[in-house]
Each structure stands twice: as structure tokens, then as C-alpha cells.
């Protein structure tokens, strides 16, 4: 191989055609072939020589990029006049042109109008060089501060989680040993990993520094606390801080346990906060969540399909939470679904199954449809559209039939508008144009006429502003741009919690801003959020911090009195009560299959002595196999065999 490369080096030279072209450009007409050959050889050689010298300047300039000034300096070294005019900092903008049977690379020189230059205001003065100091290492340990790179890059986390058996790269390998050394692990770990024939996944220690523990405490408290300003800051921190890698297991457990408890408590506000944490974690560019999906997805799915999410389903707007969670779900499907974990298909299966169930409540039904709809137009086309008729009939039965309960009616109403919203745009695309109401009625039943008007509206909008429509379709498929909108909707919706402010939560007001305002900037969102705060504050009894709520819920959790009262250790029997995790459990037989796993999870709230937790918490990722999704989707983690044997059961 090396030989080949060298061969190439040996033979590379300028083509004789270039010689001719250059000769022409300086006015030499007929250049003989022989002289061309001789010239091109000579010129290639000289160019190589200059390039070698230029490299020298690059090395001494302590750069990786060869710049035009290096070439200039190399020329100067040979007492050749430097080339003028190539001052480009980044790259030389050579352009390619062909024509007349000739191919040329040329340097584009635009004609410059002097008056333009004179009249344009001066560009901003570039910032002056400045000096900034930070700690790269404190007594041998690199602190996780924004100035330092994250301990594990996203790619590395991805490789780790998707291909644990992959050969560890040299750099990482050393890093691992360093970590081992500095954190007191045995050096044998590192050695064995290198030389051992059986490649074991290195056991990573989950020890948080005191600062990290404090940070974790602050952040989690702020996230579920009552001060919205603090929460916004905390979420911002979660979404941007590069050093959260080590705390990720804690956060994920916090969220999953939080959802578990608060679903039972029907604490809508807290559920919303927790979902926003999930969102923030997903937004963090340095984190790769694949390893923690087994905790996060059940929590998110719970928020989508749970039978009841709030104390007063008739007045509280839990629909927004379902929408938001559905979008989160869609996002994680998009990001993490691979052929091995099949997240998307498993999610789809689960959702469809409970949707198809006759006995499913309207709330769950809504969640299922929202979850499916967010997965994209393809899913809508194949799964939702065929069932429009049946669903329409069901809605009709509730709407027109005898008033059973207000809740059912509201539910049906929401389902209807949801279906209309999502299906209209898809139908607009796949259905040829004349939109005939009767045709729609025969095709889609009860919902037909309404769909028709929605579709027509969609079409006119598309015609009016193609771009905008494009974007609105984007907002449906892509969860990201809708974040701000959904947040505003979400927080606005959490407002109606106090019935005195808004009497009836109308889904229309919630949904209508969506197509019209594609991806609004965040300011309005925050404004709404402030409103939500006041609303939350009004019902202060509901906002309880996690630890207290857990200790209150006697069904699920027991506070171990023995461990210590200083560090709030919470022991939970995960999966003990299926009812609390998925409230729809009563109806869906498949979904509920409760397998009480007799495993103990230790949730470590920040504590000073984390060492006692350490061995147990390291078990976390392996021991919890998700509970509620187990039936349809067994979350198999790609683990090396070594790792699974390591975990002490």
C-alpha cells in the first residue's frame, strides 16, 4: 500500500496542457510538445520543493492548515518574489470551468467598484487578542467546566452504547486508564482490557464530585420547583452544559421515578416539568441518551397515553402534555431508532394496540393517536387514515348520543380535532383535488365533511405561501421547530388548572396558533410560562417536591429510615405496581402484564457520601428492564457479555 502511495507521489505532475494554457496566458503562442514536457516536469518539481518549505513554516507557525502566507514565506526563502493577491484566510477560492474541450481552474477576480467600497461602512474591528485562564486540571482531575471538553464526546458515547464490543481506540483506552488511576480504580482493569482475550466493557465508576452533587441537587430542585425563572435557567443549563455526561444516569432515574410517582398523584404540573427536562436533555449536544432510553421512553410514553394525568380531567389541560410528550417520543424515535433496537416499530405497535382496543378511554386514545401522528405522515397514512371512519363513528356516538359524561365528550372533541389537524395535511397531499364533501363523507364517514373543509383550508394555505406550508408540514414531522410553540401552548394550558381564570379549556385555542405561527421565537413562550407560574403558585398544594411526594406515596416507595436522614436515599421497587405506571392498565391486558421485578433501585439524591451508593448505582443501567413496555417491546440493551456478568444481582 505504501508502495502504491509512493508511486503516486513519484508520478504526480502538472499536465502538459496546463503548460500550454499558461504559456498562452503570457503570450507565447505555439509551445512545442517537448518543451511542454520539460517545463511541466521542472515546474512540478519546483512546486513540490516550495510546498515542502511551506510545510516547514506551517509547522513552526504551530498550525495544521497550510496558508497562503506559508507559501509566500517559502518563496521568499528562495528569493522569489511572493505571489500577491492571495490573502484568503481560509481557502483559496479556485473555481472550475470547462469549455472548448479544456478544463481550467481559475481564481475569480471580481470587478470592484471603488465607490461601493468607499461608501460601505467600515467592517467591525476584529476582536483583539486576549488571554483567559482556566483550570485544565485540579490535582490531576479535569474539572467539568465549559472551558474543558466534555469527558466523553457524543460520538464516543454513541459508539459505546451502540457498539460496545468495538475495539477501543487508543486515545480512549488511555483516557480510561487515566480515569481509572485518578479515580482510584485498579490499574488491572486497564490492563485486562488491553490484553485480555475476552474484551470486557470497562466498568465505569459513577462517582460524582461534591460540586456535581450540589449541581444535581440545585438543578433537580429548580426543575420541579415553583420558580419559573429558576426552572428556565436550570433547563437551559441541562440543554447546554457539556459536563453532564456523568450525571446522566441520575437524571434519567430522576425523571423516570418522578413520572412514576406523579402519574399516580395526577400531578400534571410536575409531569410537564419532567417532560421539559427530557426535552432539555435531548437538546444537549454533548449527550447521547441511547443508554438511558429504557428509563426515559417508558416515562414519556406514560405521559402520552396515561388514562389520567391530572386531578380534574374535565378542566385541566393534560392534552398539551400528551402532545408535547408525543413530540418527544417522535424525536427520540428519529434519533435513536436503529435496526437493532427497533424503537419506532415497537412504539408504533404498542400505541396501535391500545388504540385498537374498544375499551380504551378517550384520554389514552388521544395519546395514542397523537403519538402515532407525530411519527410522521407515513405513519398517519398507513395507520390512522384507514381507521378514520371507525373513529369517526365512535366520536359521533359520544357527541350525538346521550350525555354520558362530560369527560367523554371533551375527550371525543379533542380526538376529533387532533385527527382533523393531523390528517388534513396528509390527505391534502395524497388526494387529488376536487374536494367533494360527499366523497369525503363516504370515504371517511362522520369526520368527512369536517376533514374536507380542513383539507381545503390546507390547500389554500399551501397555494398562498408555499414556503409557509412547507414549514408547517415541517412542524408536524419535526418536533424541534415546534418546541417553542408547544411550550407556549403547554404552559398556557397548564394555566387553566385554576378554573377561575379560564372556564373551559378549548382545544381549538390551543391548536389554532400552530399552523399559523410556524416556529415562533421563544419570548412569547416565556411570557406564557410566567402565567403558568402564577397558576401553579395558586395551587401550591399540588406542587410538591419529588422527595416529599415520594415519601407521601406509601404505595410505591418507602423511605429507608436506616440509611441516613442526611442523604435522602429513596428506595423504590420498580415495577411493583403496574397501575401506577400506566393508568390505562386496567383496560389493556397486554400492556399491563406486570412483572414485579424484585430489583432495587437506588435513587441518589445529592449526598455528600456518594461512595456508599457507588456500587449499586453502577448496576442501574443493566438491572432495570423497563416495566410497562415490556410486553410489546423488550428493551434490550446492547451489552457486552462481560458487562452483564459483572452486575451483581
Amino acid at each position, binding site marked *: 500500500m*505504501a508502495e502504491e502511495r509512493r508511486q503516486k507521489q513519484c508520478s504526480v505532475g502538472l499536465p502538459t496542457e496546463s503548460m500550454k494554457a499558461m504559456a498562452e496566458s503570457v503570450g507565447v503562442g505555439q509551445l512545442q510538445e517537448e518543451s511542454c514536457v520539460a517545463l511541466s516536469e*521542472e515546474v512540478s518539481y519546483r512546486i513540490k520543493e516550495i510546498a515542502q518549505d511551506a510545510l516547514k513554516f506551517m509547522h513552526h*507557525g504551530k498550525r495544521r492548515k497550510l496558508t497562503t502566507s506559508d507559501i509566500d514565506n517559502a518563496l521568499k526563502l528562495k528569493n522569489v518574489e511572493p505571489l500577491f493577491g492571495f490573502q484568503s484566510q481560509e481557502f483559496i477560492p479556485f473555481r472550475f470551468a470547462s469549455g472548448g474541450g479544456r478544463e481550467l481552474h481559475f481564481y475569480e477576480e471580481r470587478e470592484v467598484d471603488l465607490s461601493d467600497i468607499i461608501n460601505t461602512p467600515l467592517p467591525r474591528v476584529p476582536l483583539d487578542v486576549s488571554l483567559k485562564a*482556566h483550570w485544565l*486540571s485540579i490535582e490531576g482531575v479535569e474539572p467539568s467546566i465549559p472551558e*474543558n471538553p466534555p469527558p466523553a464526546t457524543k460520538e464516543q458515547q454513541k459508539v459505546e452504547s451502540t457498539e460496545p464490543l468495538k475495539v477501543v481506540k487508543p486515545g480512549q483506552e488511555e*483516557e480510561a486508564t487515566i480515569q481509572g488511576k485518578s479515580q482510584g480504580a485498579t490499574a488491572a482493569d486497564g490492563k485486562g482490557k488491553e490484553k485480555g482475550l475476552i474484551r470486557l466493557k470497562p466498568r465505569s465508576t459513577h462517582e460524582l464530585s461534591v460540586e456535581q452533587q450540589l449541581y444535581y441537587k440545585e438543578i433537580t430542585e429548580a426543575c420541579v420547583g415553583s420558580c419559573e425563572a429558576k426552572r428556565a435557567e436550570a433547563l437551559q443549563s441541562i440543554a447546554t452544559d457539556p459536563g453532564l455526561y456523568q450525571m446522566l444516569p441520575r437524571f434519567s432515574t430522576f425523571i423516570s421515578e418522578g413520572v412514576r410517582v406523579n402519574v399516580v398523584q395526577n400531578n400534571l404540573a410536575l409531569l410537564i416539568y419532567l417532560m421539559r427536562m427530557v426535552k432539555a436533555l435531548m437538546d444537549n449536544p454533548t449527550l447521547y441518551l441511547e443508554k438511558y432510553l429504557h428509563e426515559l421512553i417508558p416515562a414519556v410514553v406514560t405521559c402520552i397515553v396515561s388514562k389520567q394525568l391530572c386531578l380534574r380531567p374535565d378542566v385541566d389541560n393534560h392534552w398539551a402534555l400528551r402532545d408535547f410528550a408525543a413530540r418527544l417520543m417522535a424525536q427520540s424515535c428519529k434519533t435513536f431508532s436503529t435496526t437493532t433496537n427497533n424503537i419506532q416499530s415497537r412504539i408504533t405497535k404498542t400505541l396501535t394496540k391500545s388504540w385498537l382496543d374498544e375499551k380504551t378511554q378517550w384520554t389514552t386514545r388521544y395519546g395514542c393517536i397523537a403519538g402515532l401522528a407525530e411519527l410522521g405522515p407515513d405513519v398517519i397514512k398507513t395507520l390512522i387514515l384507514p381507521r378514520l371512519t371507525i373513529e369517526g363513528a365512535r366520536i359521533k356516538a359520544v357527541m350525538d348520543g346521550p350525555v354520558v359524561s362530560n369527560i367523554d365528550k371533551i375527550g371525543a372533541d379533542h380526538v376529533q380535532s387532533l385527527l382533523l389537524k393531523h390528517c388534513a395535511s396528509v390527505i391534502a397531499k395524497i388526494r387529488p383535488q376536487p374536494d367533494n364533501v360527499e366523497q369525503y363523507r363516504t370515504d371517511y364517514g362522520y369526520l368527512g365533511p369536517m376533514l374536507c373543509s380542513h383539507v381545503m383550508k390546507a390547500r389554500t394555505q399551501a397555494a398562498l405561501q408555499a414556503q409557509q406550508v412547507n414549514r408547517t408540514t415541517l412542524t408536524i414531522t419535526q418536533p424541534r421547530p415546534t418546541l417553542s410553540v408547544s411550550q407556549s401552548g403547554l404552559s398556557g394550558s397548564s394555566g387553566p388548572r385554576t378554573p377561575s381564570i379560564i372556564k373551559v379549556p378549548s382545544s381549538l385555542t390551543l391548536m389554532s396558533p400552530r399552523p399559523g405561527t410556524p416556529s415562533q421565537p421563544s419570548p412569547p413562550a416565556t411570557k406564557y410560562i410566567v402565567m403558568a407560574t402564577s397558576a401553579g403558585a395558586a395551587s401550591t398544594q399540588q406542587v410538591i417536591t419529588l422527595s416529599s411526594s415520594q415519601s407521601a406515596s406509601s404505595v410505591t416507595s418507602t423511605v429507608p429510615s436506616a440509611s441516613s436522614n442526611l442523604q435522602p436515599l429513596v428506595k423504590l421497587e420498580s415495577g411493583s405496581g403496574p397501575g401506577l405506571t400506566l393508568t390505562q392498565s386496567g383496560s389493556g391486558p397486554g400492556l399491563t402484564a406486570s412483572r414485579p421485578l424484585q430489583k432495587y433501585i437506588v435513587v441518589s439524591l445529592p449526598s455528600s457520601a456518594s461512595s456508599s451508593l457507588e456500587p449499586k448505582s453502577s448496576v442501574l443501567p443493566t438491572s432495570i428492564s423497563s416495566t410497562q413496555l415490556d410486553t410489546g417491546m423488550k428493551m434490550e440493551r446492547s451489552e457486552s457479555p462481560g458487562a452483564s456478568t459483572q452486575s451483581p444481582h
Partner: protein
Amino acid sequence: MAAVQGGLVDADNEKDIKTEPPSDGWVNNNANDGKVLSASPGSSATAGSNKPAAATTATAAGTPEDQQTLLAVLQFLRKNNLSESVEILRREAGLPENSLEAKAGDSSGTGDADTDAGDSSSLLSRVTVSSSARAPSPKKATAGEDQPDVNVVLSAYSQQGDPALYDVYYSGLKKFIETVLDCHRAELSQVFYPLFVHMYLELVYNNHESEAKAFFGKFSGDQECYYEDDLRILSSLSKKEHMRGNETLLDFRTSKFVLRISRDSYQLLKRHLQERQNNQIWNIIQEHLYIDIFDGIPRSKSQIDAMSGSLAGEGRREANKTKVYYGLLKEPEIELPLDDEDEEAENEEGKPKKKKPKKDSMGSKSKKQDPNAPSQTRIPLPELKDSDKLDKIMYMKEATKRIRLGPDNLPSICFYTFLNAYQGLTAVDFTDDSSLIAGGFADSTVRVWSITPKKLRKVKSAADLNVIDKESDDVLERIMDEKTASESKILYGHSGPVYGISFSPDRNYLLSSSEDGTVRLWSLLTFTCLVGYKGHNYPVWDTHFSPHGYYFVSGGHDRVARLWATDHYQPLRIFSGHLADVTCTRFHPNSNYLATGSSDRTIRLWDVLNGNCVRIFTGHKGPIHTLAFSPNGKFLASGATDGRVLLWDIGHGLMITELKGHTDTIYSLKFSRDSEILASGSMDNTVRLWDATKAFDDLETDDFTAATGHIHLQDNSLELLLGTYMTKSTPVIHLHFTRRNLLLAAGAYNP
């Protein structure tokens, strides 16, 4: 280089002659003005120090080869009408007045010395006229007036073999070496590379272009990977005309490639070649290779690989035999005022108390003369000023608070990031007391920052200085102009990127070397340029102040390192011998020696006193970009583009260990104050810490088979690596340990 431009030549003055030392020998140009190492600063009465050097000059001139070199120089001077210099040099060298004429007349007939002299003028700065080039082969002056340089350099390639047979010869040898016993194979394989190069060059020289290409294509793949850079240069060279002025070629031709081979292996090779009547190869071996034969067991492949890689083979064994006084100079006795210190000390949990007795014992030890230390007056050093003494006291006070480092006690690292530097940061230095940081930039500026709360102030103007009371106690404070106080100052003066930067130990001066060929001395009191030292006509890659001040060294693209004194505008010594650019320069802690690293992948240690090269270290596989002496003076660390750090024992002249781990060029190395930890910073955006104590301890248990100079390297880089610290896309280009062993690192953020 200059040779390419045949024309520019004679305009330049005599300083540009670079005489190739015959064999890394002693040649010392003395800057041609006859002034040897100048009198000690401050006192004019130490002219005696001139004597040893002058004496060496005279004695050494006795050998015929050196005499020839001198004659060549004289010839050149005469040609350029520098009669005064001729006179001085002649007197200095003790040559009879008529010798030149006689010789010149002589040589014009034979075309020997004359050609050389003429060549030296035309080759000027680049082409080093090697006396060794003359010595070995009976020279046929194959003249061809149009290209004298190539002919001189390549005269040995005049042998005309059948170009078609080269292939056969080479593969024949290859087959033979492949069939010899395993123990000899590795050693004999060393022959391949130089042979390959010389055969290729012969083919090219004799205008067998296609054969040369075929030969190259066939066998270049067999060469060791670390020669790849050179092969690339060779590959581009396919015509006789290209040979003119090609540096690599000249290096190859002018210096013999040094191989170390055991006697048995050598006999084997010799017998084979003689049996086969393979004169072609035998000639090359005789003429272009220097085979250093030793008695004993042949070396293993790994042993050879560790040492090879340089442009001209390994260093000769005898080159590293000279005694080097690597010990430290005795510290001047300064009474340590221990008054107010004690109160402070008690606050710090008695830590310093433990150190105190230790410190004293060390103090008493240092009173005894270290057997390895040079005598105090070996080279004249500046006397200590009062301010220096104060600084020494400060240093000792700080030293008592120093943290003892070790594998379990790693230093904290404070990283200074240069923001908005736009890839322009090229050099950084800290003062020894870590109060100032200076950066050299590609835009020709030098910037100085204060990293303590104390701001940088200029001295008042002369008129204002006249007014102040010179007798007052705080006169030093009064001379400063408060109005100019700022956190950073910019020094303008260079006309090219600044590549090297160095603070003087007393913090009053700053040196900077630049692409424009000058080294500039800046005052940190007035923040103006004091002197521009001109001598290197090409980019100056690095400069470094002596730890005792006054002297400094610079090295550049012209392949020489120069020793200067701040009060002389011409160099005191020119250290020549490197075959490519001198990329980094570093003074030994005792100021008697200095080390230079080069693109020829060797490190040389030079004696400041007489200009001799006393050590040649080979083993790096890429240009060396940084050097660091251990504070105790015993060891040297070097880092190169190959991403490896090598540790050398100066006393024995041997490699101790190699530290692998970096993935890109290493730009900075530094030992902690007590030599326990070696820190390395690299282009790969990491700072790594290595256990130097362990590396040195391992060495002492090793048996030094110094007789053969073999080394046994264990691959224990991973055990020695104590820590890796990634920065956020910031190459680490400088490292510095504060007096209390806090590690400071610096680099420019590269978005």
C-alpha cells in the same frame, strides 16, 4: 536555496560561510573577527578566558583537513576583498603568510582546494563544503564550469555502471540479506536505505531517468516507514538538474551515513560482496557510508529502530564519548533572611516546617562541588546584581512552599488560552517567576501580559527621570510611570512571523526571533527594542536565554545555531553541523552547554566554551520541535513531529526511554521543578504528564552496557503516563512550572 539562485552570492558578507565540520568536530568560526568568547560582562579584565579557545584553534588547525578548510575560507575572504579578516584569521590559525598563495597556486592545477574555495563562494549559505567530501575519493575534477556545485558534491557519482544492473545488484544484496542468519539480518538491513538512496542518485545523476524511476518504484516500498519524508523528496527528484541545490541530496552527499554494525555482520557482508565481485555496491559502501564496527552481539531490530531515523544515520559512538560536565553550578551563597517567613509558615499546617531541614541539608550538599559540575569559571558568567540576589531569595522562599509531586500527587494545571488569535500565535514564554507571559504572533507582533495583578509600566521619560530624587529608597518605584500602567503591551519591530521568544532570567529583557532573520532584544522597562541581532539571513526558528542571563542562543533555517552575548552585535560562536534547519535551541541549566534540535531528526549538545559538538542523539523520526533539560542537568527530553517524547541521559549519551501517546507534533516539554514529572503539550490538544522519576529510576537498575552503547527500551509508556488532559481544540504550545510546581500551559483557541 542560494544555490538555486546562483547569482546572489557574493554580495553577502563573510558571516555567511558555513563550514562543514569535518566530522562533527570542533570547527569554530569565531565570527571571523578574531574575537573569541568575549570578556566577562562587567569586567574587562578576563581576557584570559580567550586563551583556551584560541589555543584549540591553533592546535586543531594542525590536521591537514582542517587546514584545508581554513584555506578555503581564506581564499573566499580574499576573493571578496576582506583583507583584514584574512589577516586576522591567518594569524589566529597560525598559518604562514605564503601558504595560501602556494596552496592556491597548487590547487588550481589539481582543481582540488580551488574548486572548493570557489564553490564555497557560490554555494554560500546552503552548500556546506565538506572536507570529508574531499578526503575519501581521489578526485577527478570533472569540472563542467556551468555547474560547479553539483559536480563537487557529486563527483563521487562519476562512476558509470550499467544502469540495468543496479536493479540486479540491489535485489542480489536483498536476497543475500534475507537469507543470512536472523541475528545478522536486522543489522545488515540498515544498509538498505543508504544504498538505495545512493544508487538512485547515481542513476539520476547519470541521466538514466527511466531506470531511476523503475528502481525507485521497485524498492522504495521496502524502506523503513520513518524515512518516508525523505523518500518523498527523493521521488520528486528525477533529473540531474534537480540535484542542483536540493538540500536532501546535499545532505546525503556531504555527510557519510553512519551505520553501527557488529563485526561479525560486517565480515559477512564484506565477504559476500567480495565473492560476488559486486563492486558497485562495495564502492558506495566505501565512499558514502561510515560503518561503525563494534565487537559484541549484533543488535536486535528494535534496538536498531530506536536509534535510527535521522537524516544521516546514527551518531558515531566516539561522538558521544566526550565528558560532559552536566552538574549544576554551585549556587552563590546568599544569606536567607528567615524572619517574617516563620509566621507565615505556621499558618500552613506545618508543611514548610518539614521542608526546612531538608532545604538546609540540600544547601550543605551544594556547598560541596559536584564532581560532574563544570568549574565555576569555565565560562565567564555575569556577576549577580543586588536585584538578582533578591530574586534568588524570593526563589528560595517559594521553593520552601513547593508542592512535592508524584504519581499520587499530580500538579494542577492552569491553562492560559489566547482568544481571537486566529491561528496567529506562534510562540509563548513565561518568566521564571510566572509573573509575565509573552506571545509571539504571525502578524510580527510580540505581546506581553502581566498575569499577576501588578500592571506593566514603562520607565518615565529622560526629562522626568532627571527630576526624581535618586537617593530615595523607593527610587525603583519612582522611576516608573503610573500613567502607562496596563495589563498588556505590544512590541512592534519585526517584519515577519515571530517564531521564538524568551524572557531573560532577570525579567528585564525579552528576546524574539522571527522569520525576518533577526533576533531582537526588547527592554521590559521601556518596552522598546534595544538591539536587532542580524546574522541568520533566513528565518530564525528559536532563541533561548541562558539561565544565567547575558548569553543567548538562536537557531534557524541556515542550519546553524549561534551563541550571542547581549552586548555584542555579532555572534560569539557558530555551531554548525546539523544537516537541516535548527528548529529549537535550549540552554543547559549550568549555561556551559546548549542543545539544539533539528529537522535532520538529530539533537546535538554543544559546548559553549569551545563550540564542540559533544553529543549527538538520534532516534527521532521527525523534525524535533522542543527540548527540555531536567532541572538537575542530568537529562534531556525532546519532542518531535512524530508525537514521541524521548528521554536522554546526557552523561552517558544514551537514550533512556521513549514516551508514546501523543498523536501529533509535540510543541512543549517541561520538567517539574524537582524533576519528578515531565509535562508534554502537543498539537493534538492534550497535556500529558509522565512519571519522570520512574523513568530515571528504571534506568539506574539497568546495566549500562556503555561499551557498545546499546539500549534496551521497554515499552512502558503506558505505565509512565500519569495523566492526559484534553483541551477544547486548543493546541498546547507552551508549558511552565511555577516555582511552587503549579503547571501553567498556554495555547491559542482554534475555533
